Structure formats: C-alpha cells, structure tokens
C-alpha cells in the first residue's frame, strides 16, 4: 500500500486515459450498454477479459520481464488493429508521464499500455501485484467514467458499481501477479470488444479515441 500506487491509479494522472472509453462508446452506440445494469455486465466482462490480461502483463513487466517479448505477446493477444493502436497510444502517453516523474528502465518510446504500466510501476517502486491492481482498476474506471459522460448516468450509482467490483478487481490482480512464465500469460478474448473497436475506428464522428 502506498501513495505512489494511488498516484498512478488516479484517473487524473496525465497519461491520456480520459480520451479512451475502453470500448464503451462503441457498446453504447450499438445499444448494448444503455443503463446501469448493462454497464455492470459490461464491466464484469471487461474485467474478466481485458482486465486480467492487462493486469498479468503489467505484473510481468513490473517484475522485469523482457519488454519486447511482452510487447509482441500483447500484439498476439490483440487481434484488433484499432485496439493495438489505442493501447500503444496510451502506453506512449504513460511512458511520457512516467519518464518525467521517475527513471525508467527502458528506452522504448512506445509499448502496449499494460507493458508500459509495468515498467512505470517498477520505476515508481511498486510491486508486481500493485502494477496488476492499477491495470485491472483502470480497465473498469475508464469505461465507468466514460459512461457518466456518454449516458449521463448518476455518478454515485456508477461509482457504486465500481465499488462493488472491488473484490473482483483485487482477485484479478492477485491471480495476474501469480503468472510466472510468458506461456502462462492469459489471453482472454472478448469478441465484442474487438469487433466494437473496429466499428468505432470506422466512424466519422466519435467522442473518444477508443
């Protein structure tokens, strides 16, 4: 437990997250997310898939895993080019912020976001499980805050959803931090996140970058 963890997990940390909806804008436009109930189901699925993958990669990178191996393994788990682009854009923004605050172990300028998060967390002195927790938490708070903006949902009720996910988030982070080898890194896919991201990238008018 540390203030540094809170700093890195803070939605106001200037790492570009505010412009990404974590697939929520696509799900809202497709009519799949309309209200608190459908948002809750969206967050469940996202945490169990993209959340677990991101957490495991963040932990592995924080533990000192080879960033270029992790980065290409992340590519292999991200079939959607739109999501690869979004992940790299956020990774780049995070490395920019991290490099200003701490001394990073990598000279890479652009990595997938979870890998970048692990690198930055390590530089900040955080443990792999804390990196995993930050990643898992980010995969739900991003779309939750986008839902407040896009659907005008009650911010209290939306935060209550996130609060209810706290134990699941903790469990995902613990599980992610136990992953010991590259082969064990999870690859949980969420077909509609991939398909939705591709649809989103093809729109002429959108509010979020992804």
């Amino acid at each position: 437990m540390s203030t540094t963890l809170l700093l890195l997990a803070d939605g106001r940390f200037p790492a570009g997250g505010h412009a990404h909806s974590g697939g929520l804008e696509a799900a809202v436009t497709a009519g799949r997310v309309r209200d608190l109930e459908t948002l809750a189901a969206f967050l469940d699925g996202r945490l169990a898939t993209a959340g677990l993958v991101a957490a495991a990669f963040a932990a592995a990178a924080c533990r000192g895993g080879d960033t270029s191996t992790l980065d290409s393994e992340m590519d292999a788990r991200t079939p959607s080019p739109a999501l690869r682009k979004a992940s790299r854009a956020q990774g780049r923004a995070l490395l920019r912020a991290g490099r200003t605050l701490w001394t990073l172990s990598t000279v890479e300028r652009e990595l997938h976001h979870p890998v970048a998060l692990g690198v930055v967390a390590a530089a900040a002195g955080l443990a792999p499980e804390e990196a995993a927790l930050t990643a898992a938490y980010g995969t739900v708070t991003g779309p939750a805050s986008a839902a407040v903006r896009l659907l005008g949902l009650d911010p209290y009720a939306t935060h209550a959803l996130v609060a209810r996910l706290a134990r699941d988030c903790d469990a995902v982070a613990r599980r992610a931090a136990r992953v010991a080898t590259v082969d064990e890194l999870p690859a949980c896919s969420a077909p509609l996140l991939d398909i939705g991201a591709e649809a989103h990238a093809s729109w002429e008018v959108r509010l979020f970058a992804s």
Partner: protein
Amino acid sequence: MKATARITAVAEAGRTRLVTLRSEPPLLVRRTGPRHAAGEVEVHLVGGAAGPLGGDRLRIEVTVGPGARLCVRTVAASLALPGPRWPERAGPRSPADTQSTLDIHATVAAGGSLRWLPEPLIAARGCDHVSRSLVDLESDASLTWREEVVCGRHGEDPGDASLHSTVRLGGRTLARQDLAVGPRACGWAGPAVLGGGRATGTLLVVDPLWTEKPPEAAVLGPGAARMPLAGGPAALAAAVGGDLREVRAALDRAFT
C-alpha cells in the same frame, strides 16, 4: 475415454499423400476427398456426434509436411456433455474425472497448407470442457483455422467450455485467444464479450502471399470484423451472432 488420432500428410511428386491416418474411438478419421488429389487432400473426423463426455481425454495430432496440402473437417458438431453420474463409492472426484479435454497439436512445414474447418462445439448444459489447440507454422506455411462455439442446445443455458488457441509462426507467437463461456466464466454473456449472442466464432487465415500487404481491417456487420494481425501475414475474422448460421455466414464472407 482416452483417445488419440493422428494425421500426417506429405507431398510426393507434386501430390499430397496421407502417410498416417490413425483412428481410436471415438476419434475416427476417414479420407473423404478424391484418392489421388493433385491439390488438397481432405479428411473427416466422423462419429463426433455425442461427445466429448466429461472425463474424456482426446488428442488430435496433425502433421503437414513441406509442400503438402491438407483439409480437416468433422461430419457434425461436437456436443460437449457432462460425464456419467459419478458413483459415490468411487470417492471424491477431481476435475480430471469430470472434465473433458481436447488437445489439438498441428504442425505445418514450409510451403505446406492446412485448412482446419470443423463443425462447431456445442457446450451443452452441465458440460465442463476444455479445448486447447497449438498450431506451429514454419515460416511460409499457410493456415486456415476455424473455431466456433454454440452456447447450449436450443433454449438451454450452456455448461462450462473454454477454448485456448495458440498459433506460432516461425517460433514466434502470432495469435493467442482464450474464450470461456458458461456458469464459471465471468461476464461472458454481457455486452463486452458476447452481448447475449449464443454463438461465436473465429477464422484465422495465414497466407504467405500477404507478406507485403495483409488484408485491410473491415467491419463485416454489427457483430463481425476482419482484423489484420500484427505479427505476420495473417488476419483474424471474428463474429458473434444469435445462432451458428449468422456466425458462419459472417466468417464465410470474411475473406472473399
């Protein structure tokens, strides 16, 4: 039940010859195409109708030699079912006693081509099934790999099924996908994963001719997209739909 099937295809004088065709019930392999195909040789797995059952350990090994061309299909969908009732006197049961597993390992040598086009897996109520596929491609090999899952029989909630697939190209991971549905999986029916769709599928195509220029990303409808991969001349089509027909239709037109 424990069974291993083995299929080995090699190229000889411009033709593909099946040098191994090993069946073991319930995995029965039959050659179905013309006997002396100048092009691709086709085999079917038959008798896959009822099963795998809980407790089954199935394994399929496919080897495609340099320049050989093989297509593998199944005659019907696989229906994953729970195993027989566990007798109390047999003592406590472990997941290994009740889970069914299917392990597929395929290797395709340089210039070889494998098309893996089975019918879907139907995850029936109460099943506990795990499929793992590992495909190793030498660089310059071609692959078409289809995976489809239907969540339960008509009007039925699915049991637990998870599919893990890894495709490596020249020793590097090209694609990795794990999909889990059923009561133990979290959020799978929700709007991030299947959004209430009862069927989903992917079609992965690796084609050395795409080395210069892979197919472009394309939205194929409200529940389907074609996506060029980062790590090689390959693209994945993914589809989610109300039933298998919808999913199959999207996958069928993904690369045409």
